[in-house]
């Protein structure tokens, strides 16, 4: 039997803001991009959630729901700083830590806990240590696999601590909505509803073959996860798939100079983040959303992974100018992401003329943009 702990920070971005600004503590803190205009909510404090404010909701809607809210800009660098601190302290318990995102991680304590009770004890210590060292609260779940551990941490948010044993799992799963199953999105949910299935327990009588026939691979997942069976391992070497930033303009923009300027700023941000994470990227993608909401992405993959701003900017700008139809079309959103990431060598001889050697093939950054 495995012993897995899932850690999920409570309203992470908003909580960090409350930590750093005592005067906003306990208030309806809403963190998002493009606070003044049309961005979306990245994180809302539990106080703000009382008014119906949720992540991914347009800021404008959040303002209507919660006019007295404190709206703050995303400070990704600061969140990453705390995230690194968090992951380090988790690794003090066991090296088997799988970070899922900046504020979420799995720990496999199978080998260090003698029995399940001890795993529960470790879970409590993890929670306590996070509070002591970061000043933030986390919801922690302890179970025998990743699916159940994650489910557990989500059951009593915020500041929750939930244990799901193998004996209890069926009871707990039985009445939960099917959407709690990882991988079940709106489409699957609808299809299941059409079959008369809305709770996890209602999935049990359906044979695996039938689920596979209807849902393909996902059918197998539904069959096992609905029974609380999940053999996926805690993967310690976690490599983020991409680093991305985007921005919604205050008004739709036609002016190429403004668009490029914005793209340059975003590029600078993602490259900075890439460097901080000690990664290099091979694929550069830009995303453009037109005023009619049609969204396109254009990408290019280069041979040598890079973390050079001049190189990334060269390709991002080239994609924008050569692969995106801009003539007389207004743009609502622009974004850039870096993917196909590889680890930068931990010990690396640095080079002279690096930028110069690149710039031989790469157009220089437009004047006034540096």
């Amino acid at each position, binding site marked *: 039997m495995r012993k897995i702990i899932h850690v999920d920070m409570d309203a992470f971005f908003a909580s960090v803001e409350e930590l750093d600004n005592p005067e906003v503590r306990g208030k309806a803190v809403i963190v998002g991009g493009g606070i003044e205009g049309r961005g979306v909510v990245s994180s809302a404090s539990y106080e703000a959630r009382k008014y119906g404010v949720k992540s991914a909701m347009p800021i404008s809607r959040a303002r209507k729901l919660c006019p007295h809210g404190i709206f703050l800009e995303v400070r990704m660098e600061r969140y990453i700083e705390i995230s690194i601190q968090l992951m380090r302290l988790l690794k003090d318990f066991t090296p088997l830590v799988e970070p899922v995102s900046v504020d979420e991680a799995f720990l496999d304590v199978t080998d260090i806990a003698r029995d399940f009770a001890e795993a529960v004890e470790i879970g409590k210590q993890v929670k306590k240590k996070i509070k002591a060292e970061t000043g933030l609260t986390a919801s922690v779940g302890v179970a025998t696999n990743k699916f159940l551990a994650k489910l557990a941490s989500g059951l009593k948010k915020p500041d929750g601590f939930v244990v799901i044993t193998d004996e209890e799992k069926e009871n707990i799963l039985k009445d939960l909505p099917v959407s709690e199953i990882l991988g079940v999105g709106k489409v699957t949910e609808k299809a299941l509803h059409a079959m008369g299935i809305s709770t996890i327990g209602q999935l049990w009588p359906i044979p695996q073959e039938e689920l596979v026939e209807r849902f393909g691979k996902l059918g197998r997942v539904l069959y096992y996860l609905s029974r609380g069976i999940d053999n996926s391992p805690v993967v310690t070497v976690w490599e983020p798939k991409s680093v991305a930033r985007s921005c919604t303009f205050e008004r739709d923009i036609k002016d190429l100079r403004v668009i490029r300027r914005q793209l340059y700023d975003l590029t600078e941000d993602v490259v900075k983040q890439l460097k901080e994470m000690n990664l290099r990227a091979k694929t550069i993608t830009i995303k453009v959303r037109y005023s009619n909401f049609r969204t396109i992405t254009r990408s290019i993959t280069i041979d040598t992974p890079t973390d050079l701003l001049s190189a990334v900017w060269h390709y991002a700008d080239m994609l924008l100018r050569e692969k995106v139809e801009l003539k007389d079309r207004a743009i609502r959103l622009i974004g850039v992401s870096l993917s196909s990431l590889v680890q930068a060598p931990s*010990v690396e001889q*640095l080079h*002279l003329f690096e930028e110069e*050697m690149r710039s031989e093939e790469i157009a220089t950054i437009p004047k006034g943009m540096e």
Partner: protein
Amino acid sequence: MKLSCQKSTMLSSLQLLGPVTAGTTTKPILQAVKLEAIDDKAVLEATDLEVGVRCLVEPVEVQEAGTVVLQEGRLTELLREWPEEKICMETRGSMCLLSGKGGVFKMAGYDPEEFPVIPTFSDEGSVEVSADELEGMIKKVVFACASERVRHTMTGVLFREEGGELRMVATDGRRLAFARGKKSGGGKTTMDGIVPRRGVELLSRIATHQEGNVLLKMDGTHLLAKSGKATLCSQLIEGQYPNYEEAVPKDNDKKVEADAEGLAAAIRRATILTTAERHLIKLKLQKGMIVVEAETPEVGEAMVDVEVKYSGEDLEIGFNPDFLLDALKAIEKGTVQLEFKGPATAAIMKRSHDFLYVVMPIRLAETT
């Protein structure tokens, strides 16, 4: 052709040419030397088409003018084994007869007509540099040339005349060596070109065997050099040399003065506890001290304190020890000035006006 001379006279000239033929394998005639006797002197030539050297053999008694082309390796070997006596060389058809106390040898020769022509040197438009100065400058930079073809221009040494002085620059993209030297004379000339490493090494060899001055000039495609006894012609490498002036940091504020020999000894000791895979030492700057450290898993740890003049902030910076030792070797004795900024930016090592070295550190990622 018929001539005679002391064995040592011929041998010393031959040895100067040796490196030219050593590297060539493609064409047999490029592994040969041409010996030409004219009036009262003899001249030896060797070329690999990139670099050519012409060297006077003297004193020599010429009985009959003429030319012979012989395989360099065998000729040199034979002369090495020859007793310290006279040797007589004489053409017999396509063969060359070598005779004296060492015995009688007949060596097959090549057709002199097929031997490539090495451009001749005219003094016009050349600069003069003392042989010592030239040799010293080359020694300070040549080790920094790129050996791999990262970028073709980096495999050579940049020669440039600027502000009335001669400059040499070499870099492999990780460190850069820069030397300045005084001209001893010579008129107006433009010298600005990249000389292949082999050409530079041969030039140094010529300067070493020479007292007095060496004349240098460039004609756009070649470097030509002439000392009393020898002439060198080297092709230039085409292309744009990296902008070395940009690579020299201007705002390194952490300035250290150290004894070059003492620092080199400390680095050499610490380097013993590194491996080829992890060839890395750390310099820790503190007030009045540099601690040289090495830490190699499964090998061990080294820590050497070196007293220096320093009053700035603490800094920890990693380097390939060879890169530091190369520069300290070029500096030899006395005080080396070191200038740092941060752990991931170029450092400077220099001695007075004549030598400047820029070296990139090894970035040490924080272990997480």
